[in-house]
């Protein structure tokens, strides 16, 4: 643990230095500088703090029923974490539903640990020390156990296949006051908003690079963010109503993007601006 903290402190110092570099080099090679900044941080990713908290949480009995996640099946058997994230979303017969990681965690909390849905979803996204999210910590831990594992979402399974197809439709669904769809910003190569590069998620390489680097520690927010958060905040900027945590639409879009990432090694939790 002290070693982890030393690495994180070094990482934050590197972030400060490179922050200055980024500011002075805006015009020419912003993307290069950001890539260097990311490399410098990679060795001391604060996401490790969330991973450690999540691991404790995973192993400790919790909830009204005093049950740990050892009985939670993420698709590879009760309590099995290694490699599980790389095969999500998948169909869970006990729930009769395709689920992504966070939806499955929520299911285990309500069905096995005895939480009400309202209690379990009180803090799905954290907000500094004022509001810590169990989901962000648990997702950090579970996803860290798929590092280096090739994405392998079971797209041949009919329920997953259906969700993938619906997710693709959603990706291109234009609506709201600004006519935005996911594809508006993520449908072409080499585009950016202001100076922020945008992945082209309609291409396999773009989807692979983006999907395999969430969850991520967001330097600008000082928080570890999950894929549910990523989608939720995209829709806010799209001027859509609020995406419900664990909703079918969130799972369908995740199935679409995770499925397109199949074959690429999972690298999260990563670090982003």
């Amino acid at each position, binding site marked *: 643990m002290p070693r982890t903290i030393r690495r994180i402190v070094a990482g934050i110092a590197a972030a400060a230095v490179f922050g200055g570099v980024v500011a002075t080099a*805006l*015009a020419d090679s912003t993307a290069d500088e950001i890539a260097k900044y990311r490399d410098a941080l990679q060795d001391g990713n604060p996401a490790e703090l969330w991973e450690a908290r999540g691991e404790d949480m995973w192993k400790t009995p919790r909830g009204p029923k005093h049950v740990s996640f050892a009985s939670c099946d993420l698709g590879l058997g009760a309590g099995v974490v290694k490699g599980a994230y790389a095969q999500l979303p998948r169909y869970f017969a006990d729930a*009769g539903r395709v689920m992504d990681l966070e939806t499955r965690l929520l299911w285990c909390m309500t069905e096995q640990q005895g939480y009400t849905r309202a209690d379990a979803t009180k803090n799905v996204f954290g907000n500094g020390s004022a509001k810590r999210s169990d989901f962000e910590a648990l997702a950090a831990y579970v996803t860290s156990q798929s590092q280096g594992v090739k994405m392998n979402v079971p797209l041949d399974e*009919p*329920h997953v*296949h*259906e969700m993938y*197809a*619906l997710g*693709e*439709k*959603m990706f*291109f*669904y*234009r*609506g*709201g*006051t*600004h*006519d*935005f*769809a996911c*594809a*508006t*910003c993520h*449908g*072409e190569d*080499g*585009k*950016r*908003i*202001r*100076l*922020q590069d*945008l992945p082209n998620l*309609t291409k396999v390489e773009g989807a692979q690079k983006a999907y395999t680097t969430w969850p991520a520690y967001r330097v600008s927010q000082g928080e570890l963010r999950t894929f549910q958060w990523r989608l939720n905040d995209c*829709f*806010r*900027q799209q*001027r*859509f*109503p*609020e*995406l*419900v945590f664990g*909703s*079918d*639409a*969130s799972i*369908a879009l995740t199935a679409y993007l995770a499925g397109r990432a199949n074959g690429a090694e999972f690298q999260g939790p990563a670090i982003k601006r």
Partner: protein
Amino acid sequence: MHRMNIVRALAGAVLLATSAFGMLYGCASAPAGHAVDDRAAAMMKSSFKAHGQATLDRLDQDETQRLCSEYAGRALPQPVVERIEKANLATIHFPADGKLVGDWKSGEKIAQSGRGFQYSDDPKQAAGANCYACHQLSPKELSYGTIGPSLYQFGKRRGYTDETRRYAWQKVYNAQAFSACSNMPRFGHHHILTDEQIRDVVALLVDPASPLNQ
């Protein structure tokens, strides 16, 4: 059995039958057609909640949004292009006093601001157009996006004519009158900007004194 459960069970059965059908015919990636569109629309309605000013009716598509979604990633057939552009051209109105050009300094502020219409925004504050998110405009602003074309020297290149001013007004008002399924928001048609604000953005584009035209 609760009524809701029966509906869900039926929907599930239909869903299973449809995906089995898709598999049978080796439909590998995107099962096209209206059945998937309808299911996607229904799924969206149940997956979002109203939050502040962002109410659920924002998910309801007008004909332009529906067609642009349907043809996304494919070439638009010419009759569809004409249908969309005609319908959107018909939405454009000019201000009663005929004044199309306002204050470019105010236009620059509107172009810089990304505020407005997100559920996290204060609906009482004026919205921006966030032009710089997607376009290069004034050369002084280095932080610009590339989803749209560069508008540097827009007025200078096109000439400071009535035609340029009228085109700029209409393009900001409803971009899809000229370019079906453009990524650009329809700022006048959707009341994102007021007439007064559109005037100021037009000034930023066409005023010879605007930094964009230097």
